[in-house]
């Protein structure tokens, strides 16, 4: 399913989107299917499935640990696409990974593998617009959305450029820093949501872990929230993982429809 279609459906129901990140293969390749299913049961609208890279500079300790577990468990790009193909989801699926894995596989092959396995969007946290021209063209040709990030530090000129290129949704980085669950909503988040003026849906990530935070962010004008570390924490604990993933998804989803 294309991302735009999902946001359109949600808008018609006056709901915000819950986008859930987990890392494929954390802690084993087999576990991923079960966990994705649990998240979908909990009401997640879009799955962002990480493809683990050895040097994840944009990630905090929680997701670093998840990535390490996945690598130790034997996750590879080949296995990733096989796993994704077997998921058969009825909601959009996005791959989140670092540029070297895409570069090494070959841009064309990577994007074609995405399209063939049912992935509708790509997020690359270490690929700013300056370096993304080639990948963007290939994505457009294959009808896969290249999702760009904007940050509180993004200048107006850059913002205009990114909003013109971005597809699927615009990923708003809620605060300066790396990924990781926080208990508050940064004041910079509301300001950033106001600055991003576009018809493309806006989803906010970095630091969101509760239904209350999600509700505040949707109330401030976002179309969706992205939650990662809070889910990865549950996986890391190894305790009642599917049940707790589903329960947390349900709680946060409640936050994004309560407006």
């Amino acid at each position: 399913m294309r991302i735009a279609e999902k946001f359109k459906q949600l808008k018609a129901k006056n709901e915000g989107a819950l986008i859930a990140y987990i890392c494929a293969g954390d802690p084993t390749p087999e576990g991923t299917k079960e966990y994705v299913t649990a998240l979908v049961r909990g009401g997640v609208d879009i799955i962002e499935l990480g493809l683990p890279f050895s040097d994840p500079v944009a990630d905090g300790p929680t997701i670093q640990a998840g990535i390490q577990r996945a690598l130790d468990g034997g996750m590879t790009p080949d296995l990733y696409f096989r796993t994704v193909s077997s998921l058969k989801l009825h909601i959009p699926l996005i791959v989140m990974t670092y540029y070297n894995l895409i570069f090494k596989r070959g841009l064309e092959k990577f994007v074609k593998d995405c399209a063939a396995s049912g992935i509708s969007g790509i997020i690359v946290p270490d690929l700013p617009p300056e370096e993304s021209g080639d990948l963007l063209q290939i994505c457009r040709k294959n009808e896969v959305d290249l999702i760009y990030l904007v940050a509180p530090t993004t200048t107006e000129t850059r913002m205009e450029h990114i909003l013109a290129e971005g597809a699927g949704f615009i990923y708003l980085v809620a605060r300066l820093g790396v990924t990781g669950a926080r208990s508050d909503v940064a004041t910079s988040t509301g300001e950033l949501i106001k600055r991003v003026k576009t018809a493309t849906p806006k989803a906010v990530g970095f630091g969101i872990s509760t239904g209350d935070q999600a509700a505040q962010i949707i109330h401030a004008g976002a179309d969706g929230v992205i939650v990662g570390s809070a889910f990865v924490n549950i996986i890391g604990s190894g305790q009642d993982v599917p049940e707790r993933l589903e329960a947390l998804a349900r709680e946060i989803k409640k936050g994004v429809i309560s407006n």
Partner: protein
Amino acid sequence: MSQALTSTKFGKYGGQYVPEILMPALLELTDYYEKYKDDAVFNAELDHYLKDFAGRPSPLYLAKNLSKEYGIKIYLKREDLVHGGAHKLNNTLGQGLLAKYMGKKRIIAETGAGQHGTACAMAGACFGVSTEVYMGAKDTVRQRMNVYRMELMGTKVIPVKSGSQTLKDAINEAMRDWVANVETTHYMIGSVVGPHPFPTMVRDFQSVIGKEVRLQILEKEGRFPDSIVACTGGGSNAMGIFHPFVEEDVDLFAVEAGGSGMKTTDKEALHSATLCTGEDGVLHGMRTKVLQNKYGQILESSSIAAGLDYAGVGPELAYLADIGRLKPCYSMDSEALDAFHDLCRFEGIIPALESSHALAYVKKAVASGELGDIVVVNVSGRGDKDLETVMGMRT
């Protein structure tokens, strides 16, 4: 948005592969650097610190005993005599001064062997800027004297326990810190690596080495050397001495660490010979040669010299290697140790294990004649920091 694109690259290498959060900071840094690099006041101030604080110019010394032993004329560029015991201070004084001009209140850095960290600590104390250094936990153990040196000068050393706990992971952690504190903090990268403008800027600050060699060798020999040999991890001492000679008829040799063997597995390399064996990739904000497996996962590198132990290399070196302007080569741990002892014994100079790789290459390459009659070797640092390692190898 693409107007600066060409200047960020060396051929296909270099660029700015970083999170969006950092892009404005890189553009700001580029603007400041371009504004001050030819500014008379900035350069006069930098020259003052290089001369009176760092002790430059460093001598170019004809190693007469070693020359006799090896059979060609060997000049040593004595960066080991720079304040702090390595070339690293050239860069940190430059960046430290720039950070001061930019109004940054805090400096962060990564360090491998601890030489760059020490140089940051010196610059931080000298310019009165608070300094924190990320260092692989493994490196804090094998270079504990450098940790203590940094602490003496008021720098906070933060051990990094993620990944391989070496330089690569220290860079990751420093980048994560910078992402969170980019508005107040300058990230003082210690080599010609990372996103633009770092490879260019660090090269320019280190070029003082090669500029001095040009004058010194003309004075002593009336001509340029036939070859220049420098050890290469990230490559800052190499680019520093090479850059002023790139347009000249002088052969350049970048000597990497062959470690304990030129072998790799799916997860690690027994060496750090990135130019020799790496493949194109993107790491730490730059496109360059990278030690990686078939999927693009970065390998853990290895070397007896912590300062060479890195899975990437400066993008300009990758470019110069591709176009055939420099020759990538390597020395093994054991060869470096052997050359270390030679320089101690024949010349009364204790070189860093990093620099010993360059000396080792000279020793083995003399026979082929490829170095010509006169070679300049960059003795990038002194070996006092390595004594424990060397003592541990004694049988």
